[in-house]
């Protein structure tokens, strides 16, 4: 079932006192955020500051070491499948199968998210057109360039509607025109009551986006690092 994106009810997605530990190191701690319907959150910070980890926590791929995530005040851990249904996660990998065509790749994810086959089929075509992939629909994934693969992955966002988009550096490998297309898609999604959380090193134009600097939530623990591993 696809959750309705009603504009009337103020939907909020929030995190309270989140902490994340990776490889025995505290990446961030005491992190709070809230995104409302139509809102956007941009994660900023140097490499290793935990942008990707935070996005994986938000998606439910990674359990936070501390703190809770809430959708309209209800903990997302209560119903992980409902959270999956309302979330689109876009990570570092493009998940494009080399032997399936662009349309087949996309249709699979669309059907998986939205079992209504006909609707998903129409949405797939629209999504392909939107990211300038219509002429590549029959091309197998292995023939695509890095940017085309990324666009195929981005088209997934439109192929099945979901209110919450979690994008980990979505502009990687994209050309200028595609970044423009992505900006337009993001603006439309937000205008329709959707939410966007994204991390980026490039400039993505988004009106009224809230910035979250992850390096501010870093925990100073440099002093005990030499004890953990041999330093040269």
């Amino acid at each position: 079932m696809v959750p309705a994106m009603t504009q009337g009810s103020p939907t909020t997605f929030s995190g309270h006192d989140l902490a994340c530990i990776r490889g025995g190191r505290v990446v961030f701690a005491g992190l709070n955020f809230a995104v409302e319907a139509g809102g956007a959150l941009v994660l900023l910070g140097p490499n290793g500051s935990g942008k990707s980890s935070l996005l994986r926590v938000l998606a439910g791929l990674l359990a936070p070491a501390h703190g809770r995530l809430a959708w309209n005040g209800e903990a997302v851990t209560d119903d992980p499948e409902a959270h999956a249904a309302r979330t689109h996660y876009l990570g570092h990998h493009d998940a494009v199968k080399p032997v399936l065509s662009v349309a087949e790749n996309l249709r699979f994810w669309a059907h998986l998210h939205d079992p209504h086959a006909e609707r998903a089929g129409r949405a797939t075509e629209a999504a392909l057109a939107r990211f300038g992939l219509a002429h590549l629909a029959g091309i197998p994934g292995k023939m695509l360039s890095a940017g085309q693969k990324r666009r195929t992955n981005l088209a997934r966002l439109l192929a099945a509607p979901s209110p919450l988009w979690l994008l980990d550096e979505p502009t990687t490998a994209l050309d200028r025109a595609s970044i423009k297309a992505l900006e337009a898609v993001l603006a439309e999604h937000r205008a329709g009551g959707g939410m966007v959380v994204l991390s980026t090193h490039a400039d993505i134009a988004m009106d009224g986006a809230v910035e979250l600097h992850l390096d501010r939530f870093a925990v100073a623990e440099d002093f005990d690092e030499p004890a953990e591993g041999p330093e040269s």
Partner: protein
Amino acid sequence: MNRFVEVVRRDLRLALRQGSDSVMVVTFFVLTVVLFPFGIGPEVNVLERVSAGVLMVTALLASMLSLDRLFQADYEDGSLELLILTPAPLSVVVAAKMLAHWLTTGLPLMVAAPVLAVLLHMQAEGFTTLLAAMALGTPILSLVGGIGAALVLGARRGGVLLSLLILPLYVPVLIFGVGAIDAAVQGMSARPHLLILGGILAASLVLAPWASAAAVRQALE
């Protein structure tokens, strides 16, 4: 349920397009079995005696050959993350992948087995039981193997580790599979052996997708 079918269809399509995995598994099965008459000599009674064991052991090894691809390809290209994040329970997705694995490897092995049984001079009484034992045994291989495949995700030399983990778990399938065929050939009832195989299959149908899903989740943390 729709999503289950969708994942099965996608994995079958991938297997058919790539083709190599099923073909490789069956070819390995055939070639290895054909080696035995060369190795132990062409005496009919000797081959007949070992036929059930040779077929079952080789089928186990052949099925294991393709196991590391079960999740590895999806793990490498990021599809597995997205499969975890589909609105269906992960165990359903994993079960679908296991079914597709069985359809592309277990089923071809089952079809090839009687032909090879002729080659090894297995007595005709054993054939139906051989098919029954393979029908019950090969799904167990895919199910239990799937747990191992999920556990070694991301490990270096996962294939070797996988055999170490999984081969001991395959022993019951081997014992009761061969036991059933031997019983049938000697004119006894194969039913008890097949019932135990069925019991193992029933248990792994319930437990394997669940355990495998937990291992996949762990691998992607």
